[in-house]
């Protein structure tokens, strides 16, 4: 095994010295032979591959027909990549495939799994074909394995890259959706925070709020965190910083909507909440803000 791997590496590194090394065929010729074999047995090998995929319960998110269709194009791209040793087309195909299957919940291990299965199926067919000629089998594998490994690598990397791109895109979208700073009355802003606060978002929130205070000449800000599920030490400190920075601009901050869990967390981790002005819910927060600003809300008539 080790010996074969070594020769494989030699083959990769020194493609022109094969003749001197006493080989009967150049690896490119072997590859050609290999490709011809794979083309010839296309239908049968592809069938076998699809059966193995279903057996191992990969790609469960896709229907049988879809798996078959994808398997056909993957098989053809695979053979083509073996033949031309050009991986750009395969790379593009892998990216395209990932784009289609990621939204359907296909996992990384499934994609890597099917490519390795194909590699396995093809290798077995080579064993079967050359079982009488062991030396030839060795040389064929020398040519086949590095190329097959590169293909598996390319597909896996393409898939992971596509996934990362999707994640980045979603992060960007979340950031853009982020948090509006709304003016509800003259000199009164509200900042409803929903979702997870990470340090980056906390920073963005604070900057946005401070700018909002300046442009709206706000005196009171109500930060509503009803939509924040959990809070840790970092986020709590960020919140305290936001409150302090707002005060430096002359605005009072009222925090509303702390859930029982968050209240407990904050008390347990011992965040200094002395400077924070908290009210149970958003309505209460706005009412207190109105009092601070000297507003008095009164009903003009009985509600209809």
């Amino acid at each position, binding site marked *: 095994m080790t010996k074969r791997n070594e020769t494989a590496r030699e083959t990769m590194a020194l493609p022109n010295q094969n003749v001197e090394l006493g080989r009967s065929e150049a690896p490119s010729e072997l590859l050609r032979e290999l490709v011809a074999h794979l083309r010839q047995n296309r239908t049968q090998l592809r069938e076998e591959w699809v059966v193995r995929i279903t057996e191992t319960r990969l790609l469960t998110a896709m229907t049988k027909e879809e798996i078959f269709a994808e398997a056909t194009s993957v098989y053809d791209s695979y053979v083509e990549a073996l033949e031309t040793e050009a991986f750009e087309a395969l790379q593009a195909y892998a990216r395209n495939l990932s784009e289609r299957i990621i939204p359907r919940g296909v996992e990384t291990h499934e994609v890597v799994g099917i490519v390795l299965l194909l590699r396995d199926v093809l290798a077995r067919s080579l064993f079967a074909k050359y079982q009488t000629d062991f030396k030839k089998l060795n040389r064929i594998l020398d040519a086949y394995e590095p190329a097959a490994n590169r293909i598996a690598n390319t597909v896996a990397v393409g898939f992971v890259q596509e996934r990362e791109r999707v994640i980045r895109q979603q992060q960007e979208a979340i950031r853009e959706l982020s948090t509006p700073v709304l003016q509800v009355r003259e000199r009164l802003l509200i900042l409803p925070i929903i979702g997870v606060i990470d340090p980056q978002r906390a920073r963005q929130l604070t900057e946005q709020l401070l700018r909002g205070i300046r442009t709206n*000449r706000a005196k009171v800000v109500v930060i509503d965190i009803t939509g924040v599920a959990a809070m840790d030490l970092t986020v709590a400190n960020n919140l305290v*910083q936001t409150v302090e920075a707002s005060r*430096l601009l*002359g*605005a009072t901050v009222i925090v509303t909507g702390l859930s029982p869990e968050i209240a407990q967390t904050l008390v347990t981790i011992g965040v200094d909440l002395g400077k924070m002005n908290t009210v149970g819910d958003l309505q209460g927060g706005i009412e207190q803000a109105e009092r601070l600003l000297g507003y008095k809300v009164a009903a003009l008539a009985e509600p209809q």
Partner: protein
Amino acid sequence: MEVPILKQGEYLIATFQAALSDADLNQLRSGLVQQVVKLRSRGVIVDVTAMDVMDSFASRTLREIAHMIRLRGAVTVIVGIQPEVAFAMVQLGLTLEDVATALDLEEGLAYLNQKFKNTH
């Protein structure tokens, strides 16, 4: 560069023109503390709108000014801290605790007027 101290009614107004050296800050501190009793002022406004950097020395001096002026019987308001400066300050832990702050000069005057409203 020396910071001019202007008298406006019952208040003193000191407006920072640009980044100040430590010596300028010390001079401002002693100037304000002297003037506040001499001119019988009840309030002092320090306007830092022009400052785009606030280091720990400047921040400490502002706090000292506020505390000393309180001991001299007047009230201090720091006005015009820029959003970016405020953000940087809290990250450095410079929060000017127990010093009154306001958005700008107008707000600072409003704050003092409100505070002294009932004593006229």
